[in-house]
């Protein structure tokens, strides 16, 4: 392995945490780490990308509101067709990252390995790790065909650490015409600001599930998370039912969280949920059903009614302050 590329995703504050995690990991896989970024001001993130190991950042430029999938993948595919030879392309498991991965896969005619939570070099190829069956089993896989391998990696699979390098060299890429495939355009952005810490950054996460019985009872989850200075999460079941917005969802299709304490209230612990929270340092579960799978990962399990335990817990915490 000589060269690894990392798709660098940026928000207003700079590269996403997952981008920096991937750069950090890429350093252990190959001597040359390079990033591919897009946006109006890639030069402004060159320092942070460099600190985390990127010697160079290929800049796709401002997309003018177009969704990144096709134009960004098109730029990467053009680089590779022109002779650049990365051994691996690491892509964040995010909304836009998954779009880029799918496009790039079809453009280059290379398969993709998704839901990657571990990467290690073995005999010159990359061995990946994927949790299956709710994380009870770990599957190892690898590519057997021609490179580059395309890997979509889940958040918080690796730590992020700066290496102390200088700013990455910014290489502007020429525009690539992707025709009608790049025609989806953002007309208006809507930011749903939640108060308090972010779900995937909070030290305490309190999540609610179907066992709450009704959308109204989610107020208990919000109140408890507020008292603990944490964030409020949810199972897919109650998001699908429309009780809370998707942004609260913890699990395979939602956020991956690894807080100091995770409190699961009325959540049975379906595979889809466990994958997103099993890495929490401590897990507390409250559920009526002693057989619920959530208890298999709980450090403290209370077999009981959330409608009795939660109000009592909220009272107890309030009386302390």
């Amino acid at each position: 392995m000589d060269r690894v590329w990392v798709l660098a995703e940026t928000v207003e504050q700079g590269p996403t945490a997952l981008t920096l995690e991937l750069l950090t990991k890429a350093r252990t896989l190959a001597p040359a780490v390079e990033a591919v970024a897009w946006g109006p001001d890639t030069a402004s993130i060159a320092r942070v990308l460099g600190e985390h190991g990127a010697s160079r950042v290929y800049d796709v430029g401002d997309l003018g509101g177009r969704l990144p999938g096709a134009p960004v993948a098109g730029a990467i595919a053009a680089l590779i067709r022109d002779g650049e030879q990365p051994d691996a392309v690491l892509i964040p498991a995010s909304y836009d990252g998954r779009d880029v991965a799918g496009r790039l896969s079809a453009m280059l005619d290379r398969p993709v390995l998704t839901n990657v939570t571990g990467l290690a070099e073995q005999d010159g190829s990359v061995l990946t790790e994927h949790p299956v069956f709710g994380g009870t089993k770990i599957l190892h896989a690898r590519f057997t065909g021609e490179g580059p391998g395309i890997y979509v990696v889940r958040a918080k699979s690796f730590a992020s650490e700066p290496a102390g390098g200088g700013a990455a060299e910014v290489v502007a890429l020429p525009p690539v015409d992707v025709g009608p495939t790049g025609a989806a355009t953002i007309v208006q952005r809507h930011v749903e600001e939640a108060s308090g810490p972010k779900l995937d950054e909070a030290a305490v996460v309190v999540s609610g599930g179907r066992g709450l019985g009704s959308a109204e009872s989610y107020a208990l989850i919000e109140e408890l998370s507020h008292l603990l200075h944490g964030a409020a999460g949810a199972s897919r079941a109650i998001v699908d039912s429309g009780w809370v917005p998707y942004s609260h969802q913890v699990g395979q299709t939602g956020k991956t969280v690894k807080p100091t304490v995770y409190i699961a209230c009325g959540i049975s612990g379906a595979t889809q949920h466990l994958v997103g929270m099993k890495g929490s340092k401590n897990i507390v579960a409250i559920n009526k059903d002693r057989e619920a799978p959530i208890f298999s990962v709980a450090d403290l399990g209370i077999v009981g009614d959330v409608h009795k335990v939660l109000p009592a817990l909220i009272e107890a915490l309030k009386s302390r302050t």
Partner: protein
Amino acid sequence: MHVVVCVKQIPDPAVPGALDQVTHTLDRSGKLVMDDSDSYGVEMALQLAGDVDGSEVTLVSMAPGGETSGLRTALAMGAARAILVSDDALSGSDALSTAKALAAAIRRAEPDLVIAATESTDGYTGTLPVQLAELLGMPSVTFAKGVSTDGTTLEVDRQTEAGYDEVRCPLPAVVTVTAGVVEPRYPSFKGIMAAKSKPIDVLSLADLGIDPSDVGVRGARQEIVDVADAEARAGGEIVMDEGDGAARIVAFLEQLKVI
């Protein structure tokens, strides 16, 4: 407007999943059902078709052994017809090979709009719809939590990390819908009876002009090396709530110095 919905027929999720001991691929030998994630796409397609005069909904699926039970469920909801790609040589296909087979079938249907779920419940790679869009030469909008169309342009509310984006996209296009985007209807008795006589066109790789060595196990360019038990979490303390549940949690949080 012609709407195509991708429907995956998967092993019943209520039955614990298993991997084949030799190939490590998911065991699909039992009865297959329609993936619940796809019921939202089917419902969305039916609603959008209802908004534009002269519209029709076609289902496209790929499954072994000519399996149609999951498709019948979606036909009973109201889709007009189905295309099933079924060929022994497709067994063990990765997402890209599957996308190639589905793209070949979908191209024949000449759709204005292709709808899929964001990811399947059994494989959850979540890359197929976008691979499909690229192979079809169409734009794509993934993670739609709201969709409307006039038959020419698609308006989508797309989920983002921060909230959602309003996205506009000309047709033909591929859109993936999240669960909960619409409330899927239950098939009526009349619908179930009607579904029995709706046409299902079964296509082989030869029908689609695809070389069998490009897909399936032979065409796969990735392999599963091994499957191991994950490190189990140390057993915790599970107690019945005798009115002291809250106090126990408080003590636990104190011990962790969270409070």
